[in-house]
């Protein structure tokens, strides 16, 4: 009896959490008029392609998706490399200034990112980098949380293994790539998911640095659709579905890495 009650209450909670997501799919496949019909639609309709075509007309949504994929993909690879290299450096070596430099990087965890928005905008303007990929990718490559996570993980690396490699005449970089990285694969996957999700969903900095529609990422493109007098909500929901559903599908396939990546994010403060 208790079991049935507990499970029912939890299923109710899950319905509240999955319900809006399900209805996103429903809304994305209906026209704006149908979305706000009475009664509202509860099953998917056949309007998805029209909605996406509308987005293509107004913001060039195909280009938007490409921008988001390229920015998030490049960011994940580069930030992953920067964080893994630094994490390894801090974890396995002893050198002068180590703790001071690490402390400096960790300062980034406590200072809100919004403090840097105005100066970063002025920098990007001066360099002519507004509306470019590098304006979005470069500023957050040295993610303090990523360096922290990589240092944590790599600290568990047995030093004898590295010593053995050195005795075999292996160079430091080769040692990192061949000996240190392979066992770190799960942690790297978790970091990669965290980085990709972070960049895919990031809004305020792209909103400031990307000012023309051909440079927009998905969150910018869909947010830019609101506020007009003839707002097309079917199109907005279709764009929102494009932003949200790929992440949900990725989650289904990579659940284990997602869980550790997202929970690792919990140590960032």
């Amino acid at each position: 009896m208790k079991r049935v009650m507990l499970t029912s209450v939890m299923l109710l909670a899950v319905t509240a959490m999955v319900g809006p997501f399900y209805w996103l799919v429903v809304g994305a496949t209906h026209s704006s008029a149908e979305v706000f019909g009475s009664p509202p639609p509860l099953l998917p309709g056949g309007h998805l392609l029209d909605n996406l075509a509308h987005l293509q007309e107004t913001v060039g949504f195909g280009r938007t998706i490409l921008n988001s994929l390229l920015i998030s993909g490049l960011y994940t690879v580069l930030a992953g490399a920067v964080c893994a290299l630094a994490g390894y450096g801090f974890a396995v070596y002893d050198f002068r200034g180590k703790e001071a430099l690490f402390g400096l990087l960790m300062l980034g965890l406590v200072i809100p990112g919004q403090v840097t928005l105005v100066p970063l905008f002025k920098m990007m303007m001066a360099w002519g980098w507004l509306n470019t990929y590098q304006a979005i990718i470069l500023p957050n490559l040295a993610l303090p949380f990523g360096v922290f996570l990589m240092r944590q993980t790599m600290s568990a690396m047995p030093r004898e293994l590295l010593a053995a490699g050195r005795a075999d005449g292996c160079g430091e970089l080769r040692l990192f790539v061949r000996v240190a990285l392979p066992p770190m694969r799960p942690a790297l996957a978790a970091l990669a998911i965290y980085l990709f999700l972070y960049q895919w969903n990031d809004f305020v900095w792209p909103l400031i640095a990307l000012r023309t529609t051909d440079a927009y990422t998905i969150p910018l493109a869909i947010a830019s659709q609101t506020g007009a007098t003839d707002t097309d909500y079917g199109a907005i929901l279709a764009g929102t579905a494009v932003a949200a559903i790929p992440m949900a599908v990725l989650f289904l396939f990579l659940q284990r890495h997602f869980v550790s990546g997202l929970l690792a994010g919990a140590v960032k403060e």
Partner: protein
Amino acid sequence: MTLRARALAPYLFILPAVALFATFKLYPIVWSFLLSLFRTEGTVQSFAGPANYARLVNDALFWTALGNTGVILVVQVPIMLILAGALALAFDSALLRLRSVVRLGFFLPIVTGPVAYGLLFAVLLNPQSGLVNWLIGVDVPWLSDKFWARIALGLALTWHYVGYNAMIFLSRLQSLPRDQYDAAAVDGAGTWRSFWHVTLPGLRPVVLLTVVMSTIGTLQLFDEPYVLTRGGPDNALLTLGLYLYENGFRYFDFGYASAIAYALAVVIALLGVVQFRVLRDKT
């Protein structure tokens, strides 16, 4: 490899991170403070000392933004964390069935970005013809009324973050040593007493963690109020982040925007220290 080259190796490993961090974080942080001491008029900047900060203290909208953030902190965050705790306890219970379905339910909102779920909630909560008003059969003026707009924001935030916090609570619950529960049971403690004396004290570190994380997140809130109502109606959802954005990137008053940014950093630091003290002392 020579010894010299090996001594250099650690610096080369950390060089990209340190150089990027110095260029795109440290330098802007310092520059932002300097900017906050200048008055921006058109393209001309003149040294103004603490004038921007004096203006901030007398700016009613700044206090409105801070007050709005305070309301979310005092109302939404505790409710969300208590719900998260309850969900975690239920998930941890051996009685629960359909675990993988429940877990999926927790995570779907987490992977949905703030702009996406903000827009989704704006449509669901549309006052005239949204799904929610149709379901409950009442015309609640979500998003067009000051009070209900705050409730709407709270609902959206809770939907997104409750599962995430529940998973953090859960990972702690599952690492609590079982022998303490056994000892409590031997002492004749019931479910409720062992919850009060074993589970709750054991959760304290993650309570601190989630409270601090939620506070920092709330103070920096931007995306959700931006897409829900652009801060309206009548500034009901105006946050410090939105006010900073408006001043910096609509009026291009960089000096004033930088002063707001620094005020934000100070508030976050102060609240962080207070929360850390309060929650740690009880341990």
